[in-house]
Each structure stands twice: as C-alpha cells, then as structure tokens.
C-alpha cells in the first residue's frame, strides 16, 4: 500500500514540477514587458516620436523601420504568396517536395548569414553602398519562406468542393485560384503576412551590414538608413544615461508594434474559428 501512496505522491510532485516550468518560462516575458514599459514610457513624447536623433527623437528610426517593412513587403509578399500557391495547388510532385524542404531550412536560417548575403550582393555589388534596398532584400529572404508556408497551409484548408464548383462553371484553373481560392483563404493569408511583418520588424542582425544606421531621416536609396532595432542596439551600448533612456523608449515602440501585430492576429483568427 505504501508503494501506491509513493506513486501517488510522485504523480503529484511531477504535476507541481511541470507547473513550475510554466511559471519559470513566463517570468522573463513579464519582466521584459514590465521593464520596457517602466523604463521606456518616460522617454515618450511627440518630439521623441517625430524628431531626428540630434533633437532628442527617434523619428528617423521609426521612419526607417516603416520603409524597411514597405520594401520587404513589396519584394516578399508577392513572392511568398505565389510560392505558396504553387506548393498548394500544384504541389503534388517531387519538385514541390524539394521546395518544401528548402523552404523549411530557410525558415531556420541564421539571420546574420542572410545579412552577409545581402551585403555581398547589394552593398558590394548592385548598389555599391549601404542602402535601404539591401536591408529590404535581406529581410525579404527571411519573410519569403514564412509567407510561402502560411499561404500553402491556408490554401490547403479551402475545401476542394469550392475549387470544383468554380471549375464546373467553366472557369480556368488560374482564374479559379486567383478569384475563388485565394479570397476564400484571405484570413489565413493575412495572418501569415502580419506574423511575418512582426518577425522582420524586430530583426537586427541582417541590418547591421546592410542599412548600417543613420541619425538623419531617409536620404535616398544610396545612403545608410536608421531602423528601430539598430537604434536600440547602438543606444544600449552607450555609457550615457540619456541615450540608454532613448534605447528603452525605442524598445517600447518596437515591442508595441510587434506585440500589437501578434495580438491582432490572435484576435482575428479566434473570430474566424468561432464562425
């Protein structure tokens, strides 16, 4: 009978241990959110958000991040979505299986390596100087596999009967895909794109050797540009309290962007599941 009690005790013990694991993992998250809000909030002001570095603001970094998101979106979204369409609609062959494997590998690429690639092609090659374009290319290398994967998965959720109904009306397959299947999977598509944007907005490593950082507003495609993650990185390594405070303020803005995208996605997809 004591054996039974001991086993019951062990059972309880592991229940508690597993619960503790969850608590331990959540502590860093809560601490990060707490510190970023407490240390970042005092820095916030209209001046901080709109002026450039020399006037005590991070306006140029916010502008840079928005430009990078735009450039990456222009390159990454069409490429990713079309790749996903191919994998889902024509993906029943060896070629597509290979592409899927490469896609998964690319998702786990070290982001710094992507930075070196963009440095090699764009900064040393095509453009010849540090450039927002190089940053956009590096970030789209990160975005494409994510968007391709989520597109494929959400297109596969569209029932075949929908495709058949459209084909039965005599609509070509390509038109069916673009006008019927893609709109039907709109929710999943948008979710994937938003998550990819949240991911690339916070990427720092590939930006170091591509857009470099700048304390002026956007100066064209042949000069360096600033970005929020770069600003946070450089500020955090400074020994001056005012610059560190600026770094925390920038971190608050960045985390607001990233988390609001994540939460928006979560809320939107929950609504879809309920319906």
């Amino acid at each position, binding site marked *: 009978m004591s054996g039974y009690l001991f086993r019951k005790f062990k059972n309880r013990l592991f229940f508690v241990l597993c619960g503790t694991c969850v608590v331990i993992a959540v502590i860093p998250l809560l601490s990060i959110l707490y510190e970023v809000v407490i240390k970042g909030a005092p820095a916030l002001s209209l001046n901080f958000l709109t002026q450039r570095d020399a006037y005590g603001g991070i306006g140029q970094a916010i502008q840079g991040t928005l430009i990078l998101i735009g450039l990456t979106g222009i390159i990454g979204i069409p490429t990713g979505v079309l790749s996903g369409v191919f994998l889902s609609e024509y993906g029943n062959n060896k070629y597509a299986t290979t592409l899927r494997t*490469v896609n998964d590998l690319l998702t786990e690429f070290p982001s710094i390596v992507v930075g070196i690639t963009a440095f090699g092609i764009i900064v040393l090659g095509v453009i010849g100087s540090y450039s927002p374009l190089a940053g956009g290319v590096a970030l789209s290398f990160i975005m494409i596999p994510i968007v391709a994967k989520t597109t494929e998965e959400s297109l596969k959720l569209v029932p075949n009967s929908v495709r058949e109904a459209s084909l039965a009306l005599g609509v070509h397959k390509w038109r069916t895909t673009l006008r019927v299947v893609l709109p039907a999977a709109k929710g999943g598509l948008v979710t994937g794109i938003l998550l990819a944007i949240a991911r690339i907005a916070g990427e720092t490593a590939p930006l*170091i*050797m591509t857009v470099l950082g700048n304390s002026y507003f956007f100066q064209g495609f042949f000069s360096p540009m600033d970005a929020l993650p770069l600003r946070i990185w450089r500020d955090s390594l400074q020994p001056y309290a005012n610059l560190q405070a600026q770094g925390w303020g920038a971190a608050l803005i960045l*985390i607001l962007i990233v988390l609001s995208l994540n939460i928006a996605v979560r809320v939107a997809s929950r609504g879809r599941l309920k319906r």
Partner: protein
Amino acid sequence: MQIKLTGDNLFKILTAIVAASTVIILIVTAYTLVTGSERTLQKFGAGFFFGTSWNPVEGREAFGALPYVFGTLVTSCIALLIGVPLSLGIAIFLVEMAPKFLRVPIGYLVELLAAVPSVIYGLWGLFVFRYWIVNYIEVPLSTYLGWIPIFSGTPFGLDIFTAGIILAIMIIPTVASVSKEVISAVPNSIREGAYSIGATKWEVIRHWVLSYGRSGIFGAIILGLGRAVGETMAVAMLVGNATGPAAMPTSLFRPGQTMASLIANGFLEATSPLEKSAYIEVGLILLFVSLLINIAAQVMVTRVLKVKGGAVEQ
C-alpha cells in the same frame, strides 16, 4: 495550343518559377559566402578552422575560428541543458495536465516569448537580467566553487554563462511548441491502455507517451539547438565580445564569443579585405553547421508527425 499556353500552363509555370526563389536564395547565399571568404580560404585553408588567433595587423595577419566554434558549442549546450527540461515540462503541462481554460492562454504566453525581438532580449539582459545572474548565481558559485576551473574568473555578467541562459529562454517557445505537437500526436489508445493496467498519470507520460514520441521530441531539441546556434543579437550583447585566444570558453564566467556574435560585433570594424573575408568564412561555417542541424531536426520531426494516429513507430 497558343490559348493553352497563355492560360493555365503559363500561370503554373509562373508560380513554379517564383516558388524556386527559396532554392535560389539558398544557392546565392552559399555562393556569396564562398566567394566572399575566398581570400582566407586560400591563405589559411583548413588551418582557419583550428586557429585561435584573430590578428588584423598588416603583415602579421592570422585568423582562426576555433574559439568561436567552441563558444557556440558551449553556449548552445547550456541553453539545451536548461531550456529543454523547462520546455518539456511546459509541453507536458499544456497537453496532459492543465485545465482546459488555462491551455490556450498559457500556450499563448509561451508563444509570445518567441515574438519578442532578439535585440530586446539583449537590452533586458544587459540592464536587468545580467544582475540577477551575477548576484544570485555567479557570485555565490565563484565564491564557494571558484577553485573549479569552469567557475573561475571575476563574474560581472557579460560572459558565456549569461549568454547560455538567455539562449535557454529564447529556445523555450520552439522546443515547447514542437514537443507539444508531438505529445498531442500520441494516440489516445496508448494512454488508455496504460491507464487500464493501473498506471498513474506521471507513469503514463514517462513510460508511454514520452517513449512513443521520443524521436519527435529529439527532433524538437535539435530544432532548439539550431535556434541557439544561429541566434545573434542577444548573445552579441551579453557574451562579452572577446576575440582571439582569450575567447576560448575556458570558464563559464569569462567573456567569450560565438560565431554569430563575432560577426555582429566585428563585421563593420573589419579594416582589411582579408579580415572581412575571415568574418565571412565564420559565416560560412555557421551556415554549414546550421544547415546540418536543421536537416537532422526535420528528418526526425516529420517522421513522427507523419505517423499521427498510425502504426506504432519504433
């Protein structure tokens, strides 16, 4: 024929070409890294891999990647040693133990850990977490166990150990979510069979569920390893930025350097083409290691998730 070509086939060919972009990215990356590191590849050959010095002074240039390879190895091992048990605990709790109303919010909180940008982990680590580590772990350990070589040195928080712990936190979402999927994929009949012979919940998990899904959980761990190896910014800010022979991870409490952090910290400071080439060759090694790890992980994870509800996998 002509009409056929402008319609469906054209669309199919277009998407097929666009879909090849991932392969092109992979090839271009490999090509750029190999050509970019041509100078050091020719000058040092295999010696680059075993060298420990990092001397950009003209005429006496010597570059070696060994300290950073070891640094990556040690920080990733710390990350796995601490991160994996925590992640498994979370995965088990979420699938087998948590009451229904807690599952979604807790799973979501753990996923949010993955959403926090790396640079913010670095910032938090630099100004907050580092002091927890120094005050509560490093100082006591070095005071009482400082005579053991791996605990030697004066702890101030910017070292291999802190970098390893921050990596542990950062791999939790990856390892936990994949293990969660693997554990949920274990058929219920396995659990029911075990309960019916009188096993407790823990015994069911320990002896049946975990051993059924062990290949997939192993894959999840390798996937976490891949994350830890490639992670850059947080490590670059916390690892101490040592270069040359001093970067050899001889003690947990001394500054070190990983491959990724070396590139992030030093790439822009490279003065000569030869030094730039050395950084790119470190990137090439990193790419190679990370590809190997991720291929291994994928083979293991897909093998398990594909037999969902099917035959028992041995």
